């Protein structure tokens, strides 16, 4: 800790009145100089594209020549676009599986690793490790592990006496569950850390009091841990939801949306329409849908959280 000598007796004198406006101006100037270097980049590279997105969505544009204003045509096209519906359904399917499984896995890990024991740091590091490894390496390794004929996973299942193990990423039924499995394995360590922070912030007195009242371990979990973790759970759920709806890189490398369109998700549809087919206007309309889904879900979660707190 740095120690700055402070003369306690010399209380700071209150600032004279007439200077207060000038002071505010000066403080505003100083504050902005701190924020500006980052804000310029942020405004140009994040805020501006979001504004442009809402213009592009109403145009038809192939990246060459002019963007033509076509009003709501892109959105009318969305209504009858079967592939878009598939992508929407697949994204929802992924989210519905991914969110609860990751929540359960990360909370379970956090509870398991929330002890003061020798070597605990090592186990936490191990759990967190998949999160920081490269998507391409992970996707390639899992694709090999999932290999239908002689991959380790199916060899193991056959050894257990399952004659017809799933084809994993090569089967339209099992491809999305395979992706979910890998993404839960990859991300649970990160959310585990957030849960650990939440667990460590719970005052021990609450557990002591519950114990004195004769609550056994399971009751203590439901009546002390779960309510105290509510803010953490809320935060984790919000982040997880956004993460689920924007899933793209893992799918691009593992299945590229296939087999068929069984793992085609919204973000990949945006990518395809935009960067592969140069249909930038239509891709932007799909992006607007993604934008509003994330926004709506976040707002709803905040409202539910508020109601619960009251």
């Amino acid at each position, binding site marked *: 800790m740095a120690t700055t000598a402070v003369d306690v007796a010399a209380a700071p004198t209150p600032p004279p009145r007439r200077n207060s406006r000038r002071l505010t101006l000066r403080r505003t100037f100083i504050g902005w100089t701190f924020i500006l270097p980052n804000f310029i980049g942020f405004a140009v590279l994040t805020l501006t594209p979001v504004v442009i997105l809402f213009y592009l969505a109403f145009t038809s544009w192939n990246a060459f020549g002019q963007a033509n204003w076509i009003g709501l045509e892109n959105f009318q096209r969305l209504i009858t676009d079967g592939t878009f519906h598939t992508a929407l359904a697949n994204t929802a399917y992924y989210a519905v599986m991914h969110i609860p499984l990751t929540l359960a896995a990360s909370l379970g890990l956090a509870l398991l690793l929330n002890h003061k024991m020798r070597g605990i740091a090592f186990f936490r590091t191990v759990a967190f490790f998949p999160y920081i490894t490269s998507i391409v390496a992970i996707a390639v390794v899992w694709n090999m592990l999932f290999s239908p004929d002689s991959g380790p996973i199916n060899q193991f299942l056959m050894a257990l006496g399952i004659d017809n193990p799933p084809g994993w990423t090569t089967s339209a039924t099992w491809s999305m569950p395979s992706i979910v499995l890998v993404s839960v394995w990859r991300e649970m360590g990160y959310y585990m850390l957030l849960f650990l922070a939440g667990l460590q912030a719970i005052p021990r007195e609450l557990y002591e009091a519950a114990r004195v009242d004769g609550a056994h371990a399971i009751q203590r979990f439901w009546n002390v841990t779960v309510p105290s973790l509510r803010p953490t759970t809320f935060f984790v759920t919000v982040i997880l939801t956004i993460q689920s709806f924007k899933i793209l890189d893992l799918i691009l490398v593992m299945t590229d949306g296939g087999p068929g369109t069984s793992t085609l998700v919204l973000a990949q549809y945006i990518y395809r329409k935009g960067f592969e087919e140069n249909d930038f206007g239509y891709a932007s309309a799909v*992006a607007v849908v993604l934008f509003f889904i994330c926004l709506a879900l976040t707002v709803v979660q905040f409202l539910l959280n508020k109601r619960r707190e009251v």
Partner: protein
Amino acid sequence: MATVTLDRPSTNAPQLRKDPKQGRRIVARVVLYAAMIVAAAAIMLPFFWMVTSSLKTNNQVFSVPIQWLPDPVVWGNYLDIWAKADMLNWVKNTLILSVSVTFLQVLTGSFAAYGFSKVRFPGRDVLFLTYVGTIAVPWQAYMIPQFIMLSKAGLSNTLWSILALQTFSAFGVFLMKQYYESIPEELSEAARIDGLSEYSIWRKIVLPLSGPAVATLTLLTFVNTWNDYLGPLIYLRDRDIWTIQIGLKSFVSQYNAEYALIMTGSVISVLPIALIFMLGQRYFVQGIATSGLKG
């Protein structure tokens, strides 16, 4: 940190009855350790398979039954790959990007965070809300207009585009601000009375005190930039400016039957991150745990 054992007088148990409790505690420990070891082994299994496969011959990778350990150990894979793929160049590009993005992100992020947490001025909180609000906007939603802007600026197909993409994240500002709020206001007040300017306070007092947050942001940014696949995929077309991720992906498509070499490339792409993580993991795990949340 809380201490583990608290002898509670509340049970009024006589001293004699401590033994069965002790026994139960040891059993609980053993069960816990067993559970942790099983979980850790399950989590690490794909990595174990990746490393062992990178030391096998191609037809041993998918042998039936599974061959857990390479025999003979083919160290040659780690020599061949540099000749077959442009690995060295990809690693170099990725390193240049990761280091510069991390430096700029930590610098501008911590600078802005000081303005948001220690300087009071009208409109500050609304501005910060704008920042936080964009965390809920997925990048995938605005990647197209962003691409068009950067292309028009002539930055597409240069490393500058990735630098621009990665440097100004709202997350960095958010993380640093959370940490700065925990630094007592009295410190900066005292420095102000001593006549230090706000810039000196940031440089001499607040920044030196925020080691864990800087370490966390440094590691997270470095890892994110190193592992970024989508940015380079969209922006980098020339082979000589590729990063390790798209390089590896193209290598996988090109040599799709060279299983062992593919695993070798994967190990090489993970290794630098693993090393950095081992060095900084104490900060890392703590930093994320304390910055992500406040009540």
